[in-house]
């Protein structure tokens, strides 16, 4: 009896590559469960790297790469990883991937590498990465884990890119280093020094959270 049951389970048609359940992994962190604005994780790098769009974009790509691959490897190894040392194993996987990103940036994007300096290394301590490994990849199959990591990484990325967009535009009057106001003939655009300092990031982040919560109606539980 037990045997036939097992066979039936195997015969069940495979879940669609992007089923409703899986779509939720990707879509949720973009808005309703955003790692930065709702879970308030990864704030440090959201403040530090977002003065200009270019390094922010590189940072977003790096975090996405690290998250997807660390989730993949952790998920593949999840039944082999001894529970007692799982945190340090996750850390070792993340740290290795981050070092790899750092080396690649050093070789092929030296300017950005110098600008980001310690913040690439600090991806290791970004709570979003380890949070997803511990909460999801340790208990789910590789494909689901990749989707989950991708969702959270995108949730992180769009926020820091949005913050960087306003900080570079208002703080330096530029976008990707291109003097946007000068090109439309407004050369006296008053750049705002506050936007270049971390305080500017806090203000923009606060405004984004305000708009977001006004729309979703999300209220923190006490």
């Amino acid at each position, binding site marked *: 009896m037990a045997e036939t049951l097992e066979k039936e389970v195997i015969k069940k048609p495979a879940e669609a590559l992007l089923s409703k359940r899986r779509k939720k992994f990707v879509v949720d962190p973009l808005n309703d469960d955003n790692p930065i604005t709702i879970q308030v994780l990864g704030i440090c790098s959201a403040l530090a790297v977002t*003065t200009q769009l270019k390094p922010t974009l590189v940072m977003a790509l790096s975090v996405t790469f690290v998250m997807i691959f660390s989730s993949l490897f952790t998920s593949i190894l999840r039944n082999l990883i001894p529970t007692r040392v799982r945190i340090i194993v996750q850390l070792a996987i993340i740290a290795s991937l981050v070092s790899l990103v750092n080396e690649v940036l050093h070789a092929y994007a030296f300017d950005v590498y110098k600008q980001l300096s310690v913040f690439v290394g600090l991806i290791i301590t970004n709570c979003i990465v380890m949070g997803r490994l511990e909460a999801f990849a340790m208990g789910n199959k590789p494909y689901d884990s990749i989707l989950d990591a991708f969702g959270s990484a995108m949730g992180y990325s769009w926020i820091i890119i949005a913050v960087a967009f306003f900080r570079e535009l208002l703080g330096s009057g530029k976008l990707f280093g291109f003097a946007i106001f000068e090109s439309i003939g407004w050369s006296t655009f008053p750049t705002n020094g506050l936007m270049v300092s971390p305080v500017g990031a806090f203000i923009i982040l606060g405004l984004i959270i305000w708009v977001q919560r006004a729309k979703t109606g999300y209220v923190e539980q006490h």
Partner: protein
Amino acid sequence: MQRSNTYVIIFSLILTIILGGLLSLASEGLKPAQKRAEEFATKKQILSAVMEVDPKENILQIFDDRISSIVVDATAELVETDEDGKPIDAAKVDIEKQFKRNPDERLYPVFRFHEKGDPENISAYIFAFYGNGLWDNIWGYIALETDMNTIAGAVLDHKAETPGLGARITEKLVQNRYRGKKIFNEEGELESVNMLKSENNPPSVLDEHNINGMSGATITAKGVNRMLKNYFENYLPFINKIKEEDRKVARLLN
């Protein structure tokens, strides 16, 4: 699942070996590209001290065409080989490593900026600088015109100065304040160029040796001042040698 201690130890060992191995492979494999990227950045900085560098242009080619470089020691003697007897390339001299040595034992690269195809027609000498900022090291390249007194241009960079404050030494706006300033006073003594405290000093205190500093970054500015003074002193024998040679040529022409 609770595993035995042996399992945990063996698992950790295997993981360490695999990750360590992969990382060292990646690091070794990327080393040539990293060296190239660093060399490119250095040459770009050196050129930026004397000209506007357009990132779209072939910077390495311009560098080869317009810069001829030499390495001198503290007594202005030409140094052609390193300790292992290999020829020295001035652009590859590790200024940080030299900075840690005693000033008398350092190697000092000099980059001569000349017209393309005419190495004798020099328009500026570029010197390499290194020092301590507020949080970590700072460095730069400063070009002197052929009178060996007027600053033709300056490029400054840093490892970890405060963004928005001391880190502003990388801004053209700040660096351009050095242009046209003099390093020797009227008596011919080395006075260097000093950044003053604050940004809006009255014109009465600004002169050929004093320029506006950066608000909120006085310690970085002091670091820059010290660096400039020290290294101009270190380069002084070389500067004097060039002046002497120029005087000789002038006498011959007369």
